[in-house]
């Protein structure tokens, strides 16, 4: 019975895992370079989804009907606009509070999240209702023996993994990445090497926020819907994933994201009431955190950023 749908559960879990991992990687990056938690991250994701919607509406109103072109432009617009928003938030809210207690940064980003959320609700036409997100991915499916996989799921899974891999290679192999890792390990010595601290922090926030926008678009494409409050849940899930994986570790964030999706999927298989799957997942996360407070990949055993 339920095992008949195993392939659906598996694919659904992988899609969710990729989306959660993209959000978690942002949290871990911000914590890596500045030791802060940026709680507006989920709302940046939501705004990224709405930015994509706006871009798509503009394109169609201009008469652009080529789906693949619309999809690419939509994604680029969402990623760039949220990257800019992330850099602005870093410049005007986070960096000025660098010397203040971390709690202040946490509060101000929480407020920023609220402001983004309410701004979308108030200023987007009819913003308090869920908006249909255009189907820009092919709705075909592939059958592998008994496994049936929707093409859009495959694209989201590989696209998301590709984005994370791209970020990983950027951090491992480029001068920007070297500077980010140096700042994460010892920001004062990094400055003594001639690294412009402020510039690197802005760049990191732009990267993380761009990735969140991509997660927002992926979420919209998968559910064919965006709404102004979707960032709340995804933000909490992304944060939990980053913490359970070990804040500061990119690999940990990815593992955490997929772990959360796995728990949700198991919860969905075991419990008949759908809402229980989140309760189940969060309970297990709490248990893991109680046993391993520094996360699965703690600082000592993994590279920070």
């Amino acid at each position, binding site marked *: 019975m339920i095992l008949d749908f195993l392939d659906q559960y598996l694919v659904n879990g992988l899609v969710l895992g990729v989306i959660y991992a993209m959000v978690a990687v942002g949290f871990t990056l911000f914590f890596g370079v500045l030791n802060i938690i940026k709680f507006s991250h989920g709302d940046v994701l939501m705004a990224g989804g709405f930015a994509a919607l706006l871009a798509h509406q503009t394109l169609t109103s201009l008469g652009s009907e080529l789906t693949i072109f619309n999809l690419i432009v939509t994604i680029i617009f969402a990623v760039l606009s949220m990257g800019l928003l992330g850099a602005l938030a870093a410049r005007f809210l986070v960096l000025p509070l660098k010397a203040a207690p971390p709690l202040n940064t946490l509060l101000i980003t929480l407020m920023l999240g609220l402001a983004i959320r309410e701004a979308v609700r108030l200023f987007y036409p009819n913003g308090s209702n869920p908006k249909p997100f255009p189907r820009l991915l092919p709705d075909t499916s592939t059958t592998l023996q008994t496994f049936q996989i929707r093409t859009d799921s495959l694209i989201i899974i590989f696209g998301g993994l590709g984005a994370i891999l791209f970020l990983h290679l950027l951090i491992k192999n480029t001068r920007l990445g070297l500077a980010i890792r140096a700042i994460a390990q010892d920001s004062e*010595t990094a400055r003594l090497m001639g690294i412009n601290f402020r510039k690197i922090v802005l760049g990191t926030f732009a990267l993380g926020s761009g990735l969140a926008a991509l997660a927002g678009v992926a979420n919209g494409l998968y559910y064919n819907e965006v709404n102004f409050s979707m960032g709340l849940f995804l933000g909490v899930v992304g944060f939990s994933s980053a913490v359970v994986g070990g804040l500061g570790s990119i690999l940990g964030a990815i593992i955490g994201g997929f772990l959360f999706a796995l728990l949700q999927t198991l919860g969905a298989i075991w419990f008949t009431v759908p809402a229980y799957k989140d309760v189940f997942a969060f309970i297990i996360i709490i248990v893991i955190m109680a046993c391993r407070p520094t996360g699965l990949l703690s600082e000592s055993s993994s590279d920070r950023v």
Partner: protein
Amino acid sequence: MSTLLEIRNIFTGYDEADVLSGVSIKIKKGQITCLLGANGSGKTTLIRTILALTQSRSGQIFFDGQEITEKETHDIVRLGISTIPEGRKVFPKLTVKENLLIGAILEKNSIKLSSRFEEVIDIFPQLRNRRNQIAGTMSGGEQAMLSIGRGLMGAPKLLVIDEPSLGLSPLFVKENFKVIHAIKERGITVLLVEQNVKQTLEIADYGYVLSQGHVVADGTAEALANSDQVQSAYFGIQKNKDFEE
């Protein structure tokens, strides 16, 4: 000989108390200038002030003909100052090679970069086989080499070396002094902060003695080696008192 770095009447303090009260120092091109003084005399604060890690209250700093008093750390470094910080401060989770590359992160020319890398590896051949080792897993002496190598990667006009022999075995301390002398031979100006008075004065050209935030003595290394003030700045006692006891 022309002056590379000049500090004019610098006052720096944390909270209310001044750590540096009117310090003036000149560093000549091509020389090793040393800063001597006991713990808490203000040596590290002076270095932090030069590099804008700590803000000065008043006074001016000039480097290579331009004022750097108000500049930010990365802009000062860009002008040609590399630092070998106290405690070595290698990036523990980066490899040896990455640590060296970070020392030259401002250099965009990859040909210059690889030739500098080879140059530094030639000075410290021990680092060659360890280029992929994680820096945090190396011994203190090896990290000291790496830290010096990282400083040289920036091809600086001025190399600031803060307490290089702190926590090292005597053998490494001796090795360190040889290396610092060799750096000077390559035409790099050195500002050396050290606790090892005798060995420092052996390789230095000129020196300043700090005590409680004031320059209490300065002169050529030879003159300082024979000066009572150096002794008293370190040990707080006069030489002749030793004889009385």
